[in-house]
């Protein structure tokens, strides 16, 4: 049966059809839908872990216990899981184990543009790089076979244009899950130095065997055509190559680590000019050049940053670009903003007003860095809001600066890796105000469950982690609740937190309005009272705007967009904004 599905959906379906038993991951664009789709299959166990390290370790356990296992995460998630991965490569697997990693060339929704192919080389494990949904589906099955045949974890790598692009998939026959023995094998699974040394030797030998496999597997395919130009490529870049150079000969790599040296040498010998098309790092190019093969066009003509596309390939070949009209310039930007009636808006309205240094984190609240709020001054990685604020406070103290930093973090990010930073801050006598926006969901990625939501990925009720007792248990005495919809109280609470020495935690427990579909009647504006002072516009809400240009512009509220939170009404000094009846 044919379906049109995204790469993420294809991997989920492929997992179900390849006898998958256990899946665990952490949400992160563009990987998130994969695990959600596994949950939708209904008959395969899967769960959200607290973070990527936990997810991969759980999956390692699943494999040791004999079930084919899948872990899903975005590229930066692998950094969190890397500790497990770099030793997992030594132990190898029992049942097949796939780590699906979704890269984000072009940084559509990520904080960096790292190329996960580096992890395949680093961990000395095989990596598959599908070029469309069908390959994504098929490579799950192929991946488990390779993993089991070579006793190795396998990386299945996608990029945004594979994970989120939909293409036609033909489903294959489903393999029923077969759970193997749960065997004690100390030299295999206990990585004490004595066993680890032996395993390192085994890893190097395995890589050589995989290299032989790479020479013959149909996953690496030569498409000979005109021999004037030969292109080595993989993943979505292959599709752009087909588009830009329909007559060129292509060596399409499906297994992108380790590389098939003889096959590459033979291909290069059969074409006049050799070109390498790969997104981000020059991973193929560096290795192929190291083989002593001449590469005419590679990163000398193609960018290291951002996505590749057909026009860039044409340009690298010196072809004139298609005549195109230039984009219209000077249009107002349309960046994403806090949803109408989101509690983050109240918090950042006040943080913006107080002009204090805000150490930020990964989540919807990162939008607080954008104008007009401009109220976030550092964002590094998951959990860094708290630990970086701790370091700032320590150096501030040494410098004699009497300023206390604010850290802002969401619930899912706090459970992921904020907790450890907070515990460390308490342990080391830190001095920061930590604001936890506990909206009971993983908002930015679309509202996934987390240890605080009371529900599992598969929709079963479970215990909720309570934030206040947790924070107290980590060693924080000053823990208070915050209601960011009340601007005056929020300002007072933040000021108190900044004035009180030592670690201080404020927790806002207002739920995510998008995830929990909270609806309230719209705010109205009294045009008689509105003076057009625009104080309310500082809250940066999509529902607000100005009336058509004229003598005196006044504020209007779009009732289709407004969700009646009342944050803007608190900004109005003229009582011009009011809530309709029957509200909160």
């Amino acid at each position: 049966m044919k379906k049109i599905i995204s790469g993420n959906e294809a991997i989920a379906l492929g997992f179900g059809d390849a006898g998958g038993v256990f899946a665990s991951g952490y949400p992160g664009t563009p990987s998130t839908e994969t695990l959600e789709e596994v949950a939708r299959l209904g008959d395969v166990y899967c769960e959200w872990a607290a973070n990527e390290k936990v997810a991969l370790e759980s999956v390692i356990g699943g494999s040791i216990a004999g079930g084919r296992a899948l872990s899903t995460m975005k590229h930066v998630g692998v950094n969190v899981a890397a500790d497990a991965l770099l030793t997992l490569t030594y132990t190898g697997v029992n049942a097949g184990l796939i780590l699906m990693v979704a890269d984000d060339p072009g940084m559509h929704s990520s904080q960096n543009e790292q190329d996960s192919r580096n992890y395949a080389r680093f961990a000395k494990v095989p990596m598959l790089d599908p070029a469309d949904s069908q390959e994504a589906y098929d490579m799950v099955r192929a991946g488990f076979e390779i993993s089991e045949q070579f006793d190795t974890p396998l990386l299945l790598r996608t990029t945004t244009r594979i994970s989120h692009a939909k293409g036609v998939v033909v489903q294959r026959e489903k393999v029923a899950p077969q759970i193997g023995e749960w065997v004690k094998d100390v030299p295999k699974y206990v990585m004490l130095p004595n066993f680890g040394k032996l395993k390192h030797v085994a890893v190097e030998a395995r890589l050589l065997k995989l290299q032989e496999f790479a020479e013959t597997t149909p996953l690496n395919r030569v498409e000979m055509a005109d021999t004037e130009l030969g292109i080595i490529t993989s993943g979505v870049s292959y599709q752009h190559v087909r588009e830009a150079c329909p007559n060129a000969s292509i060596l399409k790599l499906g297994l992108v680590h380790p590389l098939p040296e003889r096959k590459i040498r033979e291909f290069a010998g059969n074409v006049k000019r050799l070109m390498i098309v790969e997104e981000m790092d020059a991973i193929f190019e560096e290795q192929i050049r190291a083989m002593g093969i001449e590469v005419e066009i590679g990163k000398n003509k193609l960018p290291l940053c951002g996505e590749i596309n057909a026009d860039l390939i044409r340009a690298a070949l010196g072809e004139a670009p298609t005549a195109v009209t230039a984009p219209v310039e000077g249009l107002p930007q349309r960046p994403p903003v806090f949803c109408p009636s989101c509690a983050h808006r109240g918090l950042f309205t006040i943080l913006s007003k107080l002009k204090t240094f805000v150490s930020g984190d990964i989540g919807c609240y990162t939008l607080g860095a954008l104008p007009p709020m401009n109220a976030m001054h550092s964002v590094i990685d998951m959990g860094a809001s708290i630990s970086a604020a701790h370091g700032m406070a320590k150096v501030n103290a040494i410098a004699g600066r009497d300023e206390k930093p604010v850290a802002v973090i969401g619930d899912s990010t706090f459970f992921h890796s904020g907790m450890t930073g907070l515990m460390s801050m308490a342990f080391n006598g830190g001095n920061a105000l930590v604001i936890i926006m506990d909206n009971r969901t993983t908002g930015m990625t679309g509202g996934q469950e987390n240890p605080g939501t009371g529900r599992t990925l598969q929709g079963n009720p479970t215990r909720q982690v309570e934030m206040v007792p947790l924070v107290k248990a980590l060693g924080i005495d000053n823990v208070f609740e915050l209601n960011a919809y009340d601007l005056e109280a929020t300002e007072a609470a933040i000021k108190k937190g900044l004035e009180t020495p030592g670690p201080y935690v404020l927790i806002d427990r207002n739920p995510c309005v998008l995830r929990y579909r909270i609806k309230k009647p719209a705010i109205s504006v009294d045009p008689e009272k509105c003076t057009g002072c625009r104080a309310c516009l500082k809250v940066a809400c999509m529902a607000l705007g100005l009336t058509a240009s004229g003598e005196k512009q006044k504020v209007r509220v779009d009732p289709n967009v407004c969700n009646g939170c009342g944050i803007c009404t608190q900004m109005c000094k003229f009582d011009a904004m009011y809530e309709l009846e029957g509200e909160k």
Partner: protein
Amino acid sequence: MQIFNIVIAGVGGQGVLMASKVLAESALASGMDVKQNEVHGMAQRGGSVISFVRIGDQVNSPVVMPGSADLLISFEPLEALRYIHYLKPGGRLVYNKVSINPSTVAAGLAVYPDDVEQQIAAVCNNAQGIEALSIARAAGNGKAVNMVMVGTVMKHLPLKEEIITAVVKQISQNKGVEVNMKALAGGAAA
């Protein structure tokens, strides 16, 4: 057949992705190859959204390059202007005339140009603006703007109208069928 390139633009929350799904499923149901791609993640938070649908005998890249779209469907006038350079010479634009303020305008940091439609007309002589919101409301739900837009472009697609209608029927939830059918018809008549 030659590849038919469609770009769908709008604002997060307007249903751009659902409209894309309808076109992609309709192409599949017509026995064609199709790729559909959009970048999402923060799409529900009022940001600019762009989606590609490519239909043909064999489709490789999921991405439509600027200057190569046969059809641009925009759910908002400013977004039509933002992506109008995706159209190939002679390409067609169908857009919803109802504007939505970007956050930058709402915050008083930028001004929504008052000549968007004139600017569109200046660069595209094959543009049609429709009152999609009022048509959707007449169909019973202001949120059916996406189906109104699909209705209006149906006759310009290399797809049979009855296949599109059947796909919409199939993916609409129980109560939505009637509204969506009316929205498609209202869009087609616009």
